[in-house]
């Protein structure tokens, strides 16, 4: 009780500070990185050579090793994801580290390296950051000690770490609630940022990885399935916290990547089939409307694809080709019919995109 009283007190102080800050707003400096796309290059697992690339829409040029160039040191990460919240960017390194950079110029403003095991994704809300963390592997390569960390953005300290169902992945904040997919389970949990505990959980197909909100504010979840069950695309009614539509994707083996267009009515997801000699994957990108999700159509087919994104401004499909992590990867862009528009080289193991549209 004292604890919650105390945190309530802290909250009050923080709010006072916040209000005071708002009274005296700083002039907004325009970021150099305000009209382009960041490419999250995971790097190779054993080399920790993840890096950040940036493609500038105006100049149509790509810059690699952005973090290293600006901060004069290698990112040296197993780069999982990046998210921006308020004036900062959060670079999530699966090596148990978060690099915090200024959104304005990508200069380093801090590092969090304790208390994290295998962090995956970040989302910010009020004065806190929420980080999904698989937790360490046990002897049988499972992750029984997964966590949700609550990061106090004032002092950049982890305030609390909550136990979580295994392998929490994608995280989303919607209507002041935190939604988290747990990919080693069949659960999406719902956290309340107020009391910072689970208030609900939604049963979905096995292996939920990513989700998006459509224009009707329904949640679409892609899951990879478990050993015997296949993957699925499911629609979740958030008001009732239940699955209302199920599209079986066992025929296409979804790899967990999901994106939605600008209008919020066309979904894109990726299937993955291994070649017979296991030297590469054949990937296909499918699109489906939210009204007829079962009638998905293939628009792209390329080997070794690893990441998928939609530029929400221009409605272009971005795919990342990790070339099986043997070296630097590539980014391809397509229109919605699957016609290739652009192609360029990025860092090793590209896996995700963060669009910066002014």
């Amino acid at each position, binding site marked *: 009780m004292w604890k919650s009283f105390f945190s309530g007190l802290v909250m009050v102080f923080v709010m006072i500070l916040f209000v005071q800050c708002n009274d005296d707003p700083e002039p907004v400096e325009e970021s150099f990185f305000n009209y382009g796309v960041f490419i999250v290059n995971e790097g*190779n697992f054993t*080399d*920790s*050579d993840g890096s950040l690339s940036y493609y500038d829409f105006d100049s149509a040029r790509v810059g690699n090793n952005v973090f290293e160039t600006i*901060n004069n*040191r*290698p*990112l*040296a*990460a197993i780069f999982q994801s990046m998210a921006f919240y308020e004036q900062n960017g959060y670079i999530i*390194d699966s*090596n*148990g*580290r978060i690099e915090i950079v200024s959104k304005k110029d990508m200069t*380093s403003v801090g*590092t969090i*390296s304790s208390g994290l095991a295998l962090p995956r994704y970040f989302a910010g809300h009020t004065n806190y950051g929420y980080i999904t963390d698989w937790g360490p592997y046990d*002897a049988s390569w499972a992750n029984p000690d997964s966590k949700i960390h609550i990061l106090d953005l004032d002092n950049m300290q982890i305030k609390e770490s909550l136990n979580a169902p295994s392998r929490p992945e994608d995280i989303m904040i919607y209507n002041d609630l935190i939604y988290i997919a747990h990919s080693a389970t069949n659960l999406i949990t719902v956290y309340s940022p107020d009391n910072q505990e689970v208030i609900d959980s939604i049963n979905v197909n096995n292996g939920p990885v990513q989700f998006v909100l459509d224009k009707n504010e329904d949640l679409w979840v892609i899951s990879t399935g478990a050993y015997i069950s296949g993957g699925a695309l499911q629609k979740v009614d958030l008001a009732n916290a239940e699955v209302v539509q199920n599209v079986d994707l066992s025929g296409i083996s979804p790899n967990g990547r999901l994106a939605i267009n600008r209008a919020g009515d066309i979904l894109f997801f990726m299937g993955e089939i*291994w070649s017979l*000699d*296991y*030297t*590469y*994957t054949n990937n296909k990108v499918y699109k489906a409307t939210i009204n007829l999700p079962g009638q998905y159509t293939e628009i792209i087919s390329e*080997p*070794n694809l690893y990441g998928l994104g939609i530029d929400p401004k221009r409605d272009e499909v971005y795919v990342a080709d990790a*070339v*099986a*992590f*043997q*070296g*630097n990867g590539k980014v391809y862009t397509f229109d919605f019919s699957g016609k290739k528009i652009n192609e360029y080289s990025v860092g*090793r193991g590209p896996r995700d995109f963060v669009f910066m549209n002014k």
Partner: protein
Amino acid sequence: MLFRRLVILFFIFLVSPSFAEDPFIKDGPTHQGGPRLKEGLTARKGLTFGSDKRSADDLSLWDELHVEDDAALEDDISIEDDLVSDTIRMKGLTIHGEYFERFSPGSSINNADSIDKFAFQSYNLNDIISFKNPIYFKSYGNGMLSSISFRGTGASHTAVLWNGINVNQPTIGQSDFSLFPVLAFNNIRIIYGASSSKFGTDAIGGGILLESTADWNKTLSGSIGQYLGSFNNFLTVLNVKGKAGEKVYLNSKFYRRKNKNDFEYTNITKAGQPVEKQQNASIFQYGILQDVYINTSSRSQLAVKGWFNFSNREVQPTMVNEDADETQKDKSLRLIVDYGINSGIGYFELKGSYLWDYMLYNNASEIITRQYIGQLNYENSINDWEFRFGSNFNHIVAEVDNYDDQTAENRTDIYGGLVNNSLNRWQFSLNIRQTFVKGYDAPLSPSAGIRYSIINNSRSLLFLKGQAAINYRVPTLNDRYWVPGGRIDLKPEKSRNLDASLSYEYKSRIKFEAELSTYYYNVDNWILWIPGPTYWIPENVRKVEAYGFDISSSVEVPIGSYLSQLSVNYGYSRSIVRESINEDDIGLNNQLPYTPVHIGGLEYRGLIKNWYGSLSMNYTGLRYVTADNESDLPSYYLLNFRAGKNIKIKRQLLSIDFRINNLLNTSYQNMKFRAMPGRNYMIGINFLFDK
């Protein structure tokens, strides 16, 4: 502490059998040479000295310490005279462990010289090999896993033989050179170029021959040494050897290392590049070697060689992951029983070996292999033809958590060799080997070698040598049996190799040696683990083509009682992926990762009276980290200094040596994000006794 060691020493004296006079000294030592020695010197020896005409006071005690040919100095104490081969030292019996050199006139061979062996006594095999040879070692940190890349090949493309038995771990087909302390071996020979026809599997880049030998001239001698190094590095070494009666020779060695290894380094991956102390990199290692040689008759010898090595290491994490606390325990027991008899119808050698390797990673996953090896060799000569044939049988049992139950594999090799010395200037050799393993057909591995002496007089030797061979590497146990992924149907790798070299040696007051060797090879069915659906899978993926050259040279100039030695080595190697079953293989037409194109070294060594000093530089060229050659690690060079002094106390010797590694405090990475120490020091005190 010291007291305890003295007690141990005393105990060893006590239990040693009585050491009688050596009858062979009176006869003069039998000459060790086979036909090879008629030709003069093998090329690509390291710097050899102390072996010839210089008078004893020329170099005073260093000569005695580093004698290579005991014939000249039979009265002196020659404590480290371990280059004497393990020839069965009996009249009429000239067959010995150097068959390789005799049957490979076309090969280039480098023997680690005895001064270096002594100077590197407190280091590991990778340190001494890379010091004088253009051979790259990929090291996962300071004192951590160290794998070889010889002439642009991969870590499992070098055969490592201990007294003629391949000791590469059968699970991964390679050796961790950081687990081989230099002091464990009397001879360290580096064989350049492919040698599968002689050594069997793995010998595509070359071979490392490690040998223990007996010196029948000694009654009792030995040494005790203590080393102290930076970062709390302590090493104790002990060696007692000598004859017990006329027919038995014993050699016992013991070593124990404790290294906290908490060196400081600049963490280039962190904001502000802070200087940090390396965590979780400590090393504890000890080992015992025991050799027993028994002259069972005037024509036969029984040798039993045993080596137990224990190592418990924290696994040095990368700069990125400095909180990781993984550990690795390695234990190996290697036993060899070797019986040789020179009968009227030729020389027979019967060898039995038991190899036990145990590895425990993170106290979680055990990897145990046991190998039962039997070998029968026959050798004879008729006129100027020498021939040899034999067979090797290896029964491997593996207990690996990731294999199905108990996995066993039998490997049988049959081989033969022929060498002709009839022509004055020419030597020819033919060798052939076939391996049989259930599940695949290993390629027949023949080799043809030739050596032509262009100049051969009392001062100069100029050789032209060449060799053509087909070589192979069988899939490792992991490649075949690992669950998930292992594939029983993998094909062995097959390589075609061509070597040619020119070696020159000049011996007078000034000595000069130089060798230039070039090579070409291509490896088919190169096995690579590639990412599969949920796990990695080995596959015969690539065809790799490589070529390059090695240069080594040394010159030795005495000025009065001062001896100057300068040596240089350089290697250029290109190894390039030419074909791949995956047409999108981004390694295509690129240099293999972690194989430097340029590598080399330079040493100046000066000796006067009982002092020596050495300044050396080792250069490691740029290494690509990825197959597409887009990411690399910069080249670096390291400067090292060492000096030593011998103090003679009656017939005993006190030897003190001191070294500074990385003199310029260079911050470098051998592998990406693996910290290496800056300037560091080591001091060693050895007491060498001789009865």
